[in-house]
């Protein structure tokens, strides 16, 4: 008994998961790509980071990474946000040989929470989403068994009704993020809590989008060159977040002056708000590209 306890503690293998788990994940991923937008149930292992912190995305990424990959991790668009930093630390620990980057252009696999990079991704890149709620129907139907039937029949009537009721009550569709999006004309997906700003990037993309929901044990995909349409009425068009100021001007990033990016709103102690790109890499690249223009503008 005593001798057993002094044994050298076990260590962890490449990619943390055992090989059978990775195989199962890859099979689920292939099925997800073959049936765009369909939620594929999978066993979902417990990871050493908490459920809700991206365990689904993490498992997908671990099943994908080989030692010739370059990985980037973002949370809220930032590489250095606490959760992104923590995940990157984990990849460094369990995937020796895999290169890390903060540059979107250099990454082969990008794991993300709540954002799609501003820069259009290429066909040799994969974006892995961390997904808290894999099912767009959960806002209208709590039972998973019933939701499965509704998806099978492409019965999204209750979602349309919810949108209509929003119009009646508020004259606006109130869904702010996780906007229900129809993939290849059949399944409606929850595109993860990305802002509406990012939803159009799902449509006819060059890259592969993979979605992993660890706690809810589902994987789904939007393959390249696949139509992705946010639900909207012909007379009520889908609208992304509005960043115009009170004078009708598009707000610019305080750092890189870009006027075509999703902005974080930062309330200052003096009541003055600052706006800054949420995609830090894109912001840095833009600032680098136009240093003269930037300094002249910020001096003004």
């Amino acid at each position, binding site marked *: 008994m005593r001798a*057993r*306890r002094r044994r050298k503690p*076990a260590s*962890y*293998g490449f990619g943390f*998961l*055992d*090989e059978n788990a990775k195989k199962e994940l890859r099979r689920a991923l292939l099925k997800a790509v073959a049936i765009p937008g369909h939620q594929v*149930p999978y*066993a*979902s*292992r*417990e*990871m*050493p980071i*908490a*459920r*809700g*912190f991206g365990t689904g995305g993490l498992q997908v990424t671990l099943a994908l990474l080989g030692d010739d990959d370059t990985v980037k991790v973002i949370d*809220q*668009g*930032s590489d*250095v*946000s*606490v*959760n*992104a*930093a923590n995940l*990157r*630390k984990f990849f460094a620990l369990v995937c020796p040989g895999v290169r890390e980057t903060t540059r979107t252009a250099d990454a082969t696999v990008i794991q993300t*929470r*709540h954002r799609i990079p501003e820069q259009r991704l290429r066909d040799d890149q994969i974006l892995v989403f961390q997904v*808290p709620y894999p099912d767009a129907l959960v806002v209208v139907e709590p*039972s*998973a*068994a019933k939701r499965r039937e509704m998806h099978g029949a492409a019965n999204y009537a209750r979602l349309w009704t919810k949108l209509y009721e929003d119009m009646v009550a*508020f*004259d*606006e569709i*109130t*869904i*702010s*993020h*996780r906007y229900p999006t129809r993939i290849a004309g059949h399944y409606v997906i929850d595109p993860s*809590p*990305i*802002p*509406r*700003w990012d939803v159009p990037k799902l449509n006819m993309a060059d890259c592969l989008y993979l979605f992993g929901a660890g*706690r809810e044990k*589902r994987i789904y995909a939007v393959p390249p060159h696949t139509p992705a349409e946010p639900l909207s009425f012909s007379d009520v068009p889908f609208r992304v*977040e*509005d960043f115009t100021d009170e004078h009708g001007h598009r707000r610019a990033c305080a750092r890189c002056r870009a006027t075509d990016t*999703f*902005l*974080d*709103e*930062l309330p200052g102690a003096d009541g003055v708000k600052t706006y*800054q790109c*949420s995609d830090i890499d894109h912001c840095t690249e833009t600032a680098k590209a136009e240093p003269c223009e930037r300094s002249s503008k910020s001096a003004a």
Partner: protein
Amino acid sequence: MSYVAVRGGAEAIAQSNRLLDALRALGGDSAPIEIDAIERQMPILHGRVLSEGGLYHPTLAALALKQSLGDPLEAAFMLRAYRSTQPRLATMPPHETSGMRLIRRISAAFKDIPGGQMLGPTPDYLQRLFRFDLIEEEPQTFRDIARGWLGNLPDAALPTSFPKVVDALRGEGLLPQAEPCDGEPFDITRAPLVFPVPRSASLATMARGETGGLLALAYSNMRGYGDVHPTVGELRVGYLPIELPHPVTGELIEAGEVLMTECEIIAMYEDTGTGDKPVFTLGYGACFGHNEVKAIAMAILDRSMQASLAHGPRNPSEDPEFVLLHVDGIESMGFCTHYKMPHYITFQSDLDRLRTTQSKHQAREKETSDAR
């Protein structure tokens, strides 16, 4: 420039981890707590971690408690995460718990039962009064407790197996016959729950469910959101010998034993609509460690969910999807915790919706007042 750190996430985490570790050591001169002391002196807490972690590894369960500063949810979580790295080597055949090496066994159904009631270690009849002398317990007196107990053991060895109360009731035709155990059980670690799920999936999910979660849902049934009205047919605590097929010969060999709590509750007969002979109904609960509340709560929920097969769920504790998707401590704790992470992108989207809706509302108000 602003509160949003452009750099520093990694460094902040590193310092936070150091501080958490320092919490164990700061402000006192006590010796580091030994793994062995956790396992032996906090066996109830330790058993709870084994059970909710779903991996019977006593040393790692104790280490998990030490590392997590005594948080049973975090400790169970560590065991589960470790489990993900381990392959599945074999499937055990069903084990008969009549062969358990018992430390406790009671039935609330009969005054005396074949083999006898055995109260064993239980806080049930303890007066919850402080023993202030334990605040400063001398090592010598502490050792004397065990010596004194072992020195007074009766000579006669206990029987190695005790008959099960439910078997006697089955013999009398008062309970349904046991379902045959043929085919592979549902392995919740290798397949997700897609409803409806077989009973083996339900039992496995509850066996590693969180004690408080199971208790809350079972209590709702006890109070009136349901009507199981259980009688504890038998509750037993003890060590179950684990037999595994030999990798070459396939012959069963004993690989060790696990401490378990098992409970069978008996409930009233029901109209099954089949015209069969009415019999009492059963609910089953079992988990690693000594955790009687969990085993009883699980047995009640097993019964309530089985009852719903005939007529559909009439309350939350009868709905398998409601019960089984909400009793896992690792999942619920993780999701609760995740709300502390940054959500400023989604909140920005929320703000956008509210501001737009407010401005439309304002415009409408103005229109109405202008019209007046």
